[in-house]
């Protein structure tokens, strides 16, 4: 009465065979990205963990929004790949007629992706609507503070009237959020929804926007300019919340280029073992920084000596190596090395290595009793990455090993964190920064000016500092600004309103055989898709 097992075995076998066949089907060594089945050129496939959500420049203040705009639209001025000064893009030429008036002459014959003409009316419209809509997640504040009005006297001329002399104005115009949109098509009061489609004048146009599955760009036949895209089609493939997924995708060859975000464990593995899987890792100057903010309105950090002691004890090298596997560099001032005007004041004042003796002395001289009890806040990882917790645990250890501090670490998820810190609830807290526009001022004014974005969270107010900042902003020539930058950074090292820790390198992973990525790795921290050539990718 033994049951007949043969049927069972047959059933299982029938099931497994096709399974193995399917598995074998795809693993014949070919790259997954090749052969759509016809003789077209292979599309470029770019992978990222970033979440795309907006197609309207007036709502694009984050990295994915900027990336989209850089590739599908144009700004009046732009910073070319590898450069760090603004150059005309839509404009033919621009200049300051006087310190408060900036005039641009536009090129002729420019068109949008729907065939309509691009002229000064569109430029004025784009800026007016941006500031008018004031979208809460938009970059309008970059221009609203200094812009009085925009004038378009004739189709080829745009005049910006500023409230005060602002030497950084040309730089601000390069931000992708200032991309030009068509007047008749886009609403002056509403943000354009993805379902309505995007119209821009850039080298590519947006043909499909599905932020969970794929975003597709195709060559814009109406584009007039110097950019020559190599691929007709680009697929942006999101891997939301899955850095590991992004990493396995590039290892498997499902994508050609991967950027943002790969954490340090993954990057290290790709650097060490990626070659055997056909992956290369490129690194370049980055513009992201991480720093600690001290609350000077209440708590132990009101006392300058406490802030200085903290600065003496921090070991940036250890954090960079241990926590970040060398994917970040120690930073000794708020301005990263990609920008003109960087001056490593913290290194000068506090030394490169931690100095517990000096820390103790400065506390003793100020009459502060040790150990100083402090609360140190950091993001729980959903905004600044998993390494946040690791980094601050390391900082805690560094501070406590000297016996001078007694640290209580606290963390919160980003939405609560970002709502709480401006209220002054935190004694000292972690923040990160990416530039709005590629100028050193963007790493100084936001942190040192009285009444900055940190509101009551920091409470630093110094008349001399404000004067210096106003001076560098209104000085037009770069050489004249450099000495002012130096003074500002020296003062910041003395007063320690914030403590810079590291600057991040821009890291991009690519398949072997991909060309052009190195050209887009620069201070702009963006991916210019038209420069990339994946036709020979492995």
């Amino acid at each position, binding site marked *: 009465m033994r049951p007949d097992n043969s049927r069972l075995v047959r059933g299982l076998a029938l099931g497994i065979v096709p399974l193995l066949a399917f598995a074998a089907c795809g693993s014949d060594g070919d790259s997954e990205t090749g052969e759509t089945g016809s003789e077209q050129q292979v599309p470029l496939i770019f992978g990222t963990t970033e979440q795309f959500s907006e197609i309207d420049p007036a709502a694009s203040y984050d990295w994915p929004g900027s990336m989209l705009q850089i590739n599908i639209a144009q700004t009046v001025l732009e910073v070319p790949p590898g450069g760090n000064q603004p150059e005309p893009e839509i404009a033919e030429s621009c200049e300051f007629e006087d310190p408060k008036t900036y005039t641009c002459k536009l090129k002729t014959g420019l068109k949008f992706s729907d065939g309509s003409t691009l002229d000064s009316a569109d430029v004025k419209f784009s800026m007016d609507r941006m500031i008018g809509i004031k979208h809460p997640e938009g970059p309008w504040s970059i221009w609203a503070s200094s812009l009085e009005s925009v004038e378009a006297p004739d189709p080829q001329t745009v005049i910006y009237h500023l409230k005060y002399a602002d030497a950084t104005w040309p730089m601000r115009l390069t931000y992708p959020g200032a991309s030009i949109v068509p007047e008749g098509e886009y609403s002056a009061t509403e943000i354009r929804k993805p379902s309505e489609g995007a119209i821009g004048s850039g080298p590519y146009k947006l043909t499909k926007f599905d932020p969970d599955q794929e975003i597709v760009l195709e060559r814009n036949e109406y584009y007039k300019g110097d950019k020559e895209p190599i691929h007709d089609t680009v697929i942006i493939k999101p891997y939301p919340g899955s850095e590991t997924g992004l990493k396995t995708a590039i290892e498997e060859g499902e994508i050609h280029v991967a950027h943002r975000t790969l954490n340090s464990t*993954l990057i290290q*593995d790709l650097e060490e073992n990626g070659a055997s899987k056909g992956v290369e890792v490129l690194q370049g100057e980055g513009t992201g920084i991480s720093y600690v903010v001290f609350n000077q309105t209440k708590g132990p950090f009101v006392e300058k000596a406490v802030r200085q002691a903290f600065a003496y004890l921090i070991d940036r090298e250890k954090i960079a190596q241990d926590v970040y596997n060398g994917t970040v560099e120690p930073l000794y001032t708020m301005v990263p090395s990609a920008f003109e005007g960087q001056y490593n004041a913290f290194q000068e004042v506090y030394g490169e290595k931690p100095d517990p003796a000096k820390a103790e002395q400065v506390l003793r001289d100020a009459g502060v009793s040790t150990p100083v009890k402090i609360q140190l806040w950091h993001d729980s990882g959903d905004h600044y990455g998993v390494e946040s*917790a690791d980094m601050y645990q390391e900082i805690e250890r560094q501070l406590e090993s000297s016996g001078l501090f007694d640290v209580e670490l606290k963390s919160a*998820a980003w939405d609560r964190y970002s709502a709480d810190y401006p209220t002054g609830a935190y004694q000292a807290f972690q923040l990160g920064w990416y530039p709005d526009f590629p100028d050193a001022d963007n790493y100084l004014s936001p942190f040192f000016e009285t009444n900055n974005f940190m509101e009551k969270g920091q409470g630093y107010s110094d008349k001399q500092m404000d004067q210096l900042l106003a001076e560098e902003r209104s000085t037009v020539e770069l050489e004249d600004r450099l000495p002012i930058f130096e003074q500002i950074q020296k003062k910041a090292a003395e007063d320690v309103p914030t403590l810079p820790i590291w600057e991040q390198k821009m890291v991009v992973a690519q398949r072997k055989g991909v060309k052009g990525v190195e050209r887009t790795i620069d201070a702009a921290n963006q991916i210019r898709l038209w420069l990339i050539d994946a036709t020979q990718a492995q």
Partner: protein
Amino acid sequence: MVFTPTVPTDKDLHATAARRSWLRKTVDVIAYPYRASSGVARGMLVAGTVMVGFMVVLAIFAPLLAPAGFNEVETAELGAFPKHAPPSSEHWFGTNVQRFDVLSRVIWGARTELQVVLLSLSLTVVTGVLLGLVAGYVGGWLDRLLVLVMDALFAFPYLLLAIVVAFLLADKLPQGLGGGIAVAAVAITVVYIPQYFRVVRNSTISAKQATYVEAARAIGAPPFVVVMRYLFSNVIQSVPVIATLNGADAILTLAGLGFLGYGLQPTEASEWGYDLQRAVDDATAGIWWTGLFPGLAIVWLVVGLTLVGEGLNETLNPTLRVRRLIPVQLTSVGTTAQEPAVAGRSSGRGGEDA
């Protein structure tokens, strides 16, 4: 005629139960399933108890057994811990990305898991039993309402409910007040209440209707006491089984929460699910030890609890009891024939075949 009893008859059935100390009674109650079981059921029960017991020992004696604290990166004996070190004589299970010793994380993790599960199970059992009693005893619209709510909850995905509760509570309960553990425990509590509710309510209802309760009431015995006694013996059979299986589930839910990031922060306590989340990155980089050991720990504890639960179920639940193949003869009944019992007869109807 073959009489095959399925409870041991060697005990004196008329022992004066009341005179035995309550300690003896408790021990007897706990020991009963072990003595009463046989074969596979006993094997499962014993194996499961050993496995769970091992984890309990780890949890209780964690400070003595673990080579380091759960968030320490150096000790006097071992010096500073390296990052991502593979298993070695110094670090039996290696170290992870935060430079913690994995073995220590596993041992301390046992404490966390058991703490959370015990806390949540006690809350659940108390709430579920109370509600079930009330519903069964009071009846009427309250009963109908509760049954409706519980039935709806019963089929709801555990993890989903737990995630939402954890997510909602995480903002409210301040950290550092044992916040994380309390949040996780409450999140898990809510999802299992319906099970106890259902069992206790059904038993209460049938207890209310049992004829001897009426008889007892007729004699003048307080009905509540009679119901409770009847209830106790009925419920005692099912609650432990449900509790162990729920314990197993609760551990998986807690690990799931930790994996998704809604559980405990690593500085508060060591939790296996959180370690597995960090281990996902390591796995693709060929670092296998940070995920394998916490994962195996989860499997170990859950398997242990499940075995205990299944073993208990088979022992206490008569419908599944296996008939012994060799009949037992009672000397007082004079039969001469011995017939081997045929495998495959069910005693599930409640009575025994004569």
